[in-house]
C-alpha cells in the first residue's frame, strides 16, 4: 500500500510541476548575464558574458575595486561564482569556502571542512581546487579527500555529504562539481596513482548516487551498450561492439588503467547529453600496457539521466606522452564547417590537436594542430580518426630506459585544463596555450595501492626555434581548423579566458598580470595589471548595482607553477627546462588573493 501511495504522489507531483528540474534554476541563473552562476559561465562551457559596460574603448580605465585574501598558499584555480548579491569563492586544500556580500564585501559565512592531511601527498604536487557549483539555493563543494558536500547558500550550513572515492588508493578530487538537470556530476583524479577513472551523478537534494560510469573495463560498468554506443569507424559512425575496452588492455591492467576525469564538463539540454574527457592511461610507461587502452584519452557523450554512453571518440590511442584528454568540451552552434553551419563540440586537447565534432552524432569533422610546434604526429587520419605518430617521437618504439628527445608538446600539453572561451559574435575561440616541449624516458614501475605509479622521467623546455616563450594566447577558427591570431607570452598561459559582448578578451599570466585585449585583434593589449601572485585561475565577470566587475584568483601553483622538470642526464642538461619556470621567482611568490576590477 505504502508503495502504491508513493507512486501516486510521484505521478501527481509530475503532473503539477512537469518541468521542476534543477537545471531550470541553473539555466535561469546562467541566462542572467549579471550573474556568473557556473564556473564556465554557462552549461556550454563558453566563458562568454553578454555584459558590455566594459568595452575595448574604456577597458584601459579599469581599476581595482576590492581584493580578498583566501589566507591559503599553493595553486588557486577556478574562479568566483556570483548569484544575486553574494559572491562565493573557494581555496585550494583545505578547501575553504567564503560567501561574500557584494554590498559591503563582508564575509557572510565561511565553511572549512575537516580533511585528513594525508590526502595532500596523494595530490602531489599541488592541492588545487577548480571551484564551486550552485543550484537551487545550494553551494556544492568537491573536497580534495573526495567528499562531495552541499551547503545552504544563505547560511553555509551542511545539507548533505557523500564520499566519492578513497584517497588511500590514490583517489582525490580537484575538479569543480557540475550541475546538469537534477544531478551534481563529479569525477576523480589520480591517474598518476593507477586510479580507474569514472564520472558519478548524485541527486542534488539528497546526495544519493544515481549512476556511475567508468572509463575502462566491462561494458556494463562503463554504461556502454555495445550495439548502440557509437564511435568514428572507417569514416562513419558505427557501434563500438562488445568488450570495446577489455579487448584493448593486457590482463587486468584496466583496473589500474587511469582515464581519470578532472576537467570541465558541458551539457546540451536539447540532446540531454553531457560531455567530458578522460585522462591518460596508467602508467606513463607505454611498454607496460600494450593495446589502445580504451577508453582513456576519450571524448564522452552520456545521457544525463541514465549515464548511458551515446558516443565516444578516442583521441590518443595507446598514449605514450601523458596527453590527458580531460580538457574542456565547448559547445557552440552555427560554426561554419566546410560551408555548412554545424552544432559542434570543440575540444583543445593536451596532444596539440583541436577537435571539432558533431555533438549529436559524434562525427569527426575537424582535427588540426593549434600550435605549429606540435611534432609527435604528422596529422590525424580523418578516415580512421587516429593520429599518425612520428616514429622518432614514439616513446613506445624507442623503448624503456631510452630518452625520447624533442617531443612537442610536453606532457603539460599545448593546453592543460585552463579553459578557453567562445565568442558568439565571430564564432572564434580564445585559447590560453602552452608552448613547451619535452624529453621523455619511460621506465618499468610496479603498482602499489596509494603509491605513485608514474613510470617516466620528463624534462620540459620552451619550444625550440620559436619566440623563446612558453605560451601563446591564440584565436582559433574551429570550422577551418586554423589559427586566426597568436600572441606570444613569456610563460604558459595557465588562466581561463573570458570574452565579453564589450569586445574584449581577458586572461591572466603566470607572472601575475591580468591582460585585456581587443577581441578582434588580440595583439592590441588594452589593459594590464599586476596582481599579487601568478594567475592560474579563470576570469569571471558579473554586474552589481549597475556596474560591471571582473574578478580573478591569483595564487601561483599547479603543475606549471611547480616547474616540473626531471630526467637530467648530466648536471648541465635541462637547465633551460628548470630555468624556464624557475624564472617565475623573479616575478611572483605564493599567496591566494581574489582581485575584483571595475571602471571608475
Amino acid at each position, binding site marked *: 500500500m505504502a508503495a502504491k501511495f508513493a507512486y501516486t504522489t510521484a505521478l501527481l507531483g509530475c503532473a503539477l510541476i512537469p518541468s521542476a528540474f534543477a537545471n531550470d534554476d541553473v539555466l535561469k541563473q546562467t541566462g542572467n548575464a549579471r550573474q556568473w552562476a557556473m564556473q564556465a559561465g554557462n552549461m556550454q562551457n563558453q566563458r562568454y558574458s553578454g555584459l558590455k559596460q566594459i568595452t575595448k574603448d574604456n577597458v584601459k580605465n579599469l581599476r581595482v575595486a576590492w581584493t580578498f585574501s583566501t589566507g591559503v598558499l599553493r595553486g588557486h584555480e577556478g574562479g568566483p561564482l556570483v548569484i544575486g548579491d553574494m559572491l562565493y569563492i573557494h581555496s585550494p586544500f583545505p578547501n575553504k569556502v567564503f560567501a561574500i556580500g557584494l554590498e559591503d564585501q563582508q564575509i557572510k559565512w565561511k565553511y572549512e571542512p575537516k580533511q*585528513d*592531511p*594525508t590526502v*595532500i*601527498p*596523494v595530490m*602531489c*604536487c*599541488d*592541492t588545487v581546487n577548480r571551484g564551486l557549483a550552485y543550484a537551487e539555493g545550494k553551494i556544492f563543494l568537491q573536497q580534495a579527500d573526495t567528499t562531495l558536500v552541499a551547503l545552504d547558500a544563505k547560511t553555509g550550513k551542511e545539507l548533505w555529504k557523500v564520499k566519492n572515492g578513497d584517497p588511500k588508493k590514490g583517489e582525490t578530487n580537484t575538479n569543480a562539481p557540475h550541475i546538469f538537470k537534477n544531478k551534481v556530476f563529479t569525477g576523480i583524479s589520480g591517474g*598518476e596513482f593507477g586510479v580507474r577513472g569514472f564520472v558519478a551523478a548524485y541527486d542534488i537534494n539528497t546526495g544519493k548516487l544515481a549512476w556511475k560510469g567508468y572509463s575502462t573495463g566491462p561494458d556494463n560498468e562503463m554504461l556502454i551498450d555495445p550495439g548502440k554506443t557509437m564511435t568514428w569507424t572507417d569514416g562513419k559512425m558505427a557501434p563500438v561492439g562488445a568488450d570495446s575496452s577489455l579487448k584493448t588492455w593486457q590482463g587486468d591492467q584496466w583496473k589500474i588503467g587511469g582515464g581519470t576525469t578532472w576537467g570541465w564538463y558541458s551539457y546540451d539540454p536539447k540532446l540531454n547529453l553531457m560531455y567530458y574527457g578522460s585522462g591518460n592511461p596508467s602508467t606513463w610507461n607505454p611498454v607496460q600496457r600494450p593495446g589502445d587502452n580504451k577508453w582513456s584519452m576519450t571524448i564522452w557523450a552520456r545521457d544525463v539521466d541514465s549515464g548511458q554512453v551515446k558516443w565516444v571518440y578516442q583521441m590518443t590511442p595507446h598514449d605514450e606522452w601523458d596527453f590527458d584528454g580531460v580538457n574542456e568540451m565547448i559547445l557552440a552552434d552555427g560554426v561554419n564547417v566546410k560551408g555548412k553551419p554545424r552544432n559542434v563540440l570543440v575540444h583543445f586537447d593536451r596532444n596539440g590537436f583541436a577537435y571539432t565534432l558533431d555533438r549529436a552524432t559524434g562525427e569527426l569533422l575537424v582535427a588540426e594542430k593549434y600550435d605549429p610546434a606540435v611534432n609527435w604526429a604528422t596529422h590525424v587520419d580523418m578516415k580512421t580518426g587516429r593520429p599518425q605518430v612520428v616514429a622518432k617521437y614514439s616513446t613506445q618504439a624507442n623503448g624503456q630506459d631510452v630518452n625520447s628527445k624533442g617531443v612537442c608538446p610536453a606532457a603539460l600539453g599545448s593546453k592543460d585544463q585552463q579553459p578557453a572561451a567562445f565568442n558568439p559574435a565571430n564564432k572564434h575561440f580564445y585559447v590560453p596555450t602552452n608552448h613547451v616541449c619535452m624529453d621523455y624516458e619511460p*621506465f618499468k*614501475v*610496479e603498482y*602499489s*595501492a*596509494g*603509491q*605513485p605509479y*608514474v*613510470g617516466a*622521467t620528463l*624534462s620540459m623546455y620552451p619550444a625550440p626555434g620559436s619566440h623563446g616563450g612558453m605560451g601563446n594566447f591564440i584565436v582559433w577558427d574551429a570550422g577551418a581548423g586554423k589559427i586566426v591570431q597568436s600572441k606570444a607570452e613569456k610563460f604558459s598561459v595557465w588562466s581561463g579566458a573570458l570574452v565579453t559582448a564589450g569586445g574584449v578578451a581577458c586572461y591572466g599570466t603566470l607572472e601575475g598580470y591580468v591582460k585585456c585585449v581587443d577581441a578582434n585583434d588580440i595583439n592590441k593589449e588594452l589593459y594590464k595589471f599586476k596582481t599579487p601572485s601568478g594567475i592560474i585561475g579563470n576570469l569571471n565577470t558579473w554586474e552589481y548595482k549597475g556596474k560591471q566587475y571582473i574578478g580573478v584568483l591569483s595564487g601561483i601553483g599547479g603543475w606549471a607553477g*611547480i*616547474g*616540473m*622538470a*626531471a*630526467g*637530467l*642526464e*648530466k*648536471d648541465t*642538461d*635541462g637547465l633551460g627546462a*628548470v630555468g624556464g619556470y624557475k624564472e617565475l621567482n623573479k616575478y611572483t611568490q605564493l599567496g591566494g588573493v581574489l582581485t575584483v576590477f571595475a571602471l571608475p
Partner: protein
Amino acid sequence: MLLVVPHPVALADEPLYKVEGGNKVDKATLEGWRTWRALACERCHGPKQEGLVGPSLLESLRRLTKDEFKETLMKGRPEKGMPNFDGSKMVTENLDGLYAYLKGRSDGAIQPGRLEELK
C-alpha cells in the same frame, strides 16, 4: 678515474656508497636511485634534489640522522605533503640504498640524473 669514498659511518668498514666519475655507483646505491625515480620523488623535491614544493634534500641530508631519515620515509609528514612510504615494497627494501644515494647527492659526490652500476 677518481673514486670517491665517503667517511665510514660509525664502526662499519664498508663505505656508505661507492661512486666513480660521479655517475657509476654500487648496486645498492643504484637501486636507491631507481627507488627515487620510481616513487616520483622529483615531483616535490626537484630533479636535482634541490627542492621545489618539498625541501631541498641536499640540505636535509646534511641535517637528518639515518634514523630520522628512515622515520620520515616510513611515517611521512602528511601535513607538509610528505607521504608515508611504509606501504611501498620498493622503498622498504631499498631504504639503505636510497639513503646512500641521497647522501651521495648531498655530499656532492654523485651527479644528478641517470646512474649506472659500478662494475
